[in-house]
């Protein structure tokens, strides 16, 4: 792993914001993937041998925070993790992911029974070249739509990264071990929290701006203590997510797995609350399609489901009971 101490995760903030803004203007997913790859963002975690930057997970956080805040319509989280996971397994494939030629995604929900089955919650699967599907052995297979697997449209909340279902009749393709899948899923928890953080920060910033611009009864909404306190609680929620991402990645953290799980579960709950609150502060405007707060809310809810927030709370309960017994 790179030990270049000159680089700092925050160095990627400006690049990630600029690329996210450029992606909003791009015609489609291939163009967006080109922009992300050109800036080195798809390969931020992948080894240098496949064209990546070989940086620790913390470097992906500011990038995904910018993506979450800027409505990035690309499977960047999945590409970052899969490029790293397939390096050493299939270098040509990993290189193609890093270069942006091959957009890939993950069906985060469900697993195959043997080599067939239906799995779901695969963001942007309809536009991706390959989809990682998970097997009952806890490993994964990167299937190609049209070759023993079919991508089917699904009702989905997320507008930026619409989810699809994958019907697999004969799974074949490059494989990941159970360990590699476990690492990918664990790292995805913190990265999802980073996407949610970006979205929540944007919701809070929009709500604070609106509350100070909108004048009613001769004064801005922000002159009302009820609105001030509403926004202060949202600020606490945002800082809670931020501090916990930091904790999960800190070398000083004694329990990184428990910290990452709580960070994601907390982000899913608190992030959604910030988005809902921003809609409330915007009044009727908040309920319109035009004000993009609903897009953040939709993404946060989709991410909560992709990460299995409800199952993770059950896992916390099981651990709590086991430790207390």
């Amino acid at each position, binding site marked *: 792993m790179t030990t270049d101490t000159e680089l700092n995760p925050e160095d990627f903030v400006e690049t990630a914001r600029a690329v996210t803004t450029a992606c909003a203007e791009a015609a489609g997913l291939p163009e967006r993937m080109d922009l992300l790859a050109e800036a080195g963002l798809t390969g931020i975690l992948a080894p240098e041998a496949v064209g990546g930057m070989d940086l620790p997970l913390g470097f992906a956080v500011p990038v995904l925070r910018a993506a979450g805040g800027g409505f990035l319509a690309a499977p960047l989280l999945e590409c970052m993790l899969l490029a790293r996971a397939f390096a050493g397994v299939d270098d040509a494939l990993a290189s193609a992911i890093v270069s942006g030629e091959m957009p890939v995604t993950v069906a985060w929900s469900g697993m195959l029974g043997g080599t067939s089955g239906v799995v779901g919650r695969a963001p942007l699967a309809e536009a991706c070249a390959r989809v990682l599907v998970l097997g009952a052995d806890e490993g994964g297979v990167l299937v190609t739509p049209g070759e023993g697997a079919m991508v089917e449209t699904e009702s989905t909340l997320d507008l930026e990264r619409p989810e699809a279902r994958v019907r697999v009749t004969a799974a074949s393709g490059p494989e990941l071990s159970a360990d590699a899948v476990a690492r990918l899923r664990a790292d995805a928890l913190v990265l999802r929290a980073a996407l949610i953080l970006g979205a929540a920060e944007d919701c809070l910033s929009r709500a604070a701006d609106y509350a100070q611009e909108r004048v009613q009864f001769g*004064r801005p909404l922000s002159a009302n203590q009820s609105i001030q306190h509403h926004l*202060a609680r949202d*600020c606490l929620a945002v800082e809670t997510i931020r501090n*916990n991402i930091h*904790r999960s990645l*800190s070398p*000083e953290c004694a329990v990184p797995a428990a910290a990452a799980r709580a960070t994601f579960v907390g982000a899913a709950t608190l992030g959604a609350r910030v988005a809902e609150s921003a809609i409330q502060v915007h009044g009727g405007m908040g309920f319109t399609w035009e004000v993009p707060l609903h897009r953040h809310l939709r993404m946060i809810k989709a991410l909560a489901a992709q990460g299995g927030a409800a199952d993770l709370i*059950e896992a916390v309960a099981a651990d*709590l009971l086991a430790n*207390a017994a």
Partner: protein
Amino acid sequence: MTQTALAETRTAEQGMAAHARAWLDANLPDALREDRPSTRRNTVAELCDWEAKLHRAGLVGATWPKEYGGGGLGLRAHLDISREIGRTPMPESVNSIGKELAGPIIMAVGRPEQKAEYLPAILEMRDIWCQGFSEPNAGSDLAGLRTRAVQTADGWVVNGQKIWTSGASKSRRCLLLARTGPVEDRHRGLVLFALRTDTPGVDIREIQSIDGERSFCEVFLNNVVIPEEDMLGSPDEGWAAATRVLSIERATNRMHRAWRFENQLNHLVSACLSDPATRHLAESTYRRALAEVSVNIELLKGHVETLVGSLIDGQEIGPRGSLPKLFWSEAHQGFARLALEIVSQFPVEASDTLRVARKRMEDIYLKSRAETIYAGTTEIQLDIISKRILQLKRKA
């Protein structure tokens, strides 16, 4: 500090967690354990004795300079020790004002002779301190305080009244805040004293709180003469330094809270699991609610550990100290409410294990009502966040 000294300090810090855990396991008397049955209340003398032992074991004052009886270690060591103290179901300090408020303020503004006199006495539990800031008309709004200090040839003559002074009746010193000018001066002319509570003219009356305890007091000050040498810093200077200390203290005081909170949750769950008649409360009825408390505890640790990291990196904490206070107080009240609901369903003929847990949770519930009031109410914290972090516009 030289490189060698720095390395020695770091080695000492790294060993603190293991040392703290082993020492606490071996030395905490059963009578002080909050998860064991007790027949009587611990006396102040017993608690002081215990805390003095903690100090001798290096578990109190870890970050204070060695010359004042401290450990000369960094905040990371304090965090490591705090985790272990939190995990151990022992009583809260009877001198947390001395250790976490008066001590750091004295270190910031005290004269060398004041530091030498006051600081070791705090750690050795010879002097318990209380905090004389709040007044009947100056609670959250401290700038409205009225207690007057007039300089005379014999020293400062102080008149006024303090309230909500926790532990005043068992304290030897009071960190007293008074003003030298008129009330209209607001934040100007405030002066800090290390008042001896046995000074003539100091009248302390206990107030009974909703948990039945008499932990806080009213303090009446009638022509109390405070010698010049007991003033902390000059007028204005003392208070300015105190507010700087307070902003850090708000973020770091009782750093063990998250881990004590976890100990309380584990105690509640293990009590439920100890009896076939109550197992379902943890296993099914309140399973998800308890898991959510557990998630909140981890999130609280995230606040504490990240803020400690920021302080170690030399960053200013400022209003960010309000964030963990607000998060902790509300999360803990939520837990206390849930815990009371659960223990209320324990059978009438309960085992000792269930009875001890019920008593502890009832106590936590009542005490927790103060948590969103003291050290700046929830509403004050929300004001601080909206005004100083979000900097929201308040006027047209």
